[in-house]
């Protein structure tokens, strides 16, 4: 779980960084896939199927609002139908306008649902759309989802009939239209599917807003259950039992996809960087506002407690513990228990090679401090020890906090103090 959360934080950070590039690329890919799917589903107009055309339109969609993609999807589908039958194309156009007047006018921002449902029908996961609409939007989105269902079935029926009547003359157009009309009006499935989708949207929306843990996840599952039962009733009523297995599989896949989308939704929700411009009397402001987010990445530090295989060859300072000789006030090194070092006690003599110059001075400073102030000196000694350990780790090339800014400042301070004390001492001596 932590891994997933870390991944999410990482993605969020990267998204904030590369938002300007990622957004158009996503839109481009979405437009490209959508147009390709329309082309493969209604392959009547060869000119629209050219990759150049698709690429150009997708490129345009990448830099324009999402509603432009919806517009192009509609234009593409109408043009495809136009290639077979001009009257049918006109009728499709009229149907689009009717759908707009009755439904889409109220929720123009969810127009993409109208495109998404027919597109996702081709890969058998249209159930994803109502679940996502319930998750992200409000129940009014049942209107565009109903439109999507109507559009899908309309094109399905048109396709069936135009394939049946390949040799189209003007005389055939009217009978074709009456056939399509009758088929659409008698297709009660459209109404039931739209109703089931509306129910799914309401269920997901209601459960999502409940004040409990994992409300969104439970909402997705609840939506899936409603979906399965709704379509079971629908399939049994219209006696298309063969579809049940596919429907359940599609719902399961939709749930998985919904969880993935949910994951990304939380990544990108509220993380968008805002670029705004404004002015006051004195300045023009070009502000890039980056939302504050907690990046939960663990700042890991690995401490090897017993790693000294390469260092035990020589007598190592780690084998000795540094203690304070209470009588003399001197710092002495005593071998630790069980170490390979001899039992000899090392008196502190001069500096060790690895100790930097600052530390040497510090040590001298400290031993005198220990002598003069008992407990205070011991505290300083502890601090010194910690610093020494860091210095050693630093030498071994490990990551430590050695020589961060604070340490350097402290060292400078100490050096300065020592210098001053030396000066004072020398002045005193001179005075004597």
């Amino acid at each position: 779980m932590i891994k997933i959360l870390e991944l999410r934080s990482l993605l969020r950070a990267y998204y904030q960084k590369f938002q300007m590039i990622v957004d158009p690329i996503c839109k481009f890919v979405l437009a490209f896939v959508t147009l390709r799917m329309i082309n493969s589903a209604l392959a009547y107009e060869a000119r629209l199927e050219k990759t150049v055309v698709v690429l150009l339109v997708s490129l345009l969609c990448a830099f324009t609002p999402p509603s432009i993609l919806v517009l192009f999807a509609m234009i593409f589908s109408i043009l495809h139908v136009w290639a077979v039958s001009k009257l049918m194309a006109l009728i499709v156009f009229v149907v689009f306008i009717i759908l707009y007047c009755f439904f889409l006018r109220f929720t123009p921002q969810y127009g993409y649902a109208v495109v998404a449902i027919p597109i996702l029908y081709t890969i058998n996961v249209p159930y994803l759309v109502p679940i996502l609409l319930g998750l992200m939007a409000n129940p009014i989105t049942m209107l565009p989802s109903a439109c999507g269902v109507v559009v899908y079935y309309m094109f399905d029926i048109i396709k069936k009939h135009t394939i049946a009547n390949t040799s189209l003359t003007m005389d055939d157009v009217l009978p074709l239209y009456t056939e399509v009309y009758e088929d659409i009006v008698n297709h009660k499935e459209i109404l039931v599917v739209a109703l089931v989708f509306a129910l799914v949207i309401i269920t997901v929306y209601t459960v999502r807003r409940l004040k409990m843990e994992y409300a969104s996840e439970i909402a997705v599952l609840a939506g899936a259950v409603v979906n399965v039962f709704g379509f079971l009733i629908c399939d049994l009523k219209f006696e298309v039992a063969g579809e049940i297995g596919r429907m359940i599989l599609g719902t399961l896949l939709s749930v998985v996809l919904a969880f993935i989308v949910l994951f990304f939704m939380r990544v990108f929700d509220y993380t968008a960087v805002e670029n705004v411009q404004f002015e006051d009397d004195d300045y023009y402001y070009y502000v890039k506002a980056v939302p504050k987010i907690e990046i939960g990445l663990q700042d890991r530090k690995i401490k090897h407690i017993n790693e000294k295989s390469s260092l035990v060859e020589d007598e190592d300072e780690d084998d000795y513990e540094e203690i304070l000789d209470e009588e003399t006030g001197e710092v002495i090194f005593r071998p630790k228990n069980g170490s390979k070092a001899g039992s000899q006690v090392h008196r502190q003599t001069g500096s060790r090679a690895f100790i930097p110059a600052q530390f040497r001075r510090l040590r001298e400073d400290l031993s005198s401090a220990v002598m003069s102030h008992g407990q205070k000196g011991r505290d300083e000694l502890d601090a010194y020890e910690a610093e020494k350990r860091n210095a050693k780790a630093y030498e071994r090339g490990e990551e430590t906090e050695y020589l961060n800014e604070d340490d350097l400042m402290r060292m400078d301070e100490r050096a300065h103090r020592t210098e001053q004390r030396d000066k004072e001492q020398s002045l005193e001596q001179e005075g004597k």
Partner: protein
Amino acid sequence: MLNIRKTRLMTKLAIYEEGSGKEDIRLSKYYKSDYVRFQILKTILAVTFGYLLVLALVVLYKSEYLIAQAVTLDYHAIGITVLVGYIILLTIYIVGTIIGYSIKYDLSRGKLTKYFRMLKVMRKIYREEEALQSESDDGQEQ
């Protein structure tokens, strides 16, 4: 000198104004009753247009029958059916419009009060700046 507090506030205001606030600010120009009435008018137009198109599709479908029976048709009954259908549809849509757009207006008002509060703070900052400015001007004069 840049006033950081002012810049922060202005940024927040600008984000709201360019994002979700665009619609809210547009709505703030109307009284609630005016806004809802205007929306009802638009709905009536859209529904009428849509209904006419649906009628056209139905007429096209039944065109052969209509042409054949043009003389014997009971136009009165057809007219009443069409009109009743239209009135029912329109009533449903108008009620929906009143409820939906009233909710929308109230919600936008809620967000706008927050916006106006920020504007008030902004005005205070401007006053402070002006006071500072006049003080420094006085100092220079003296």
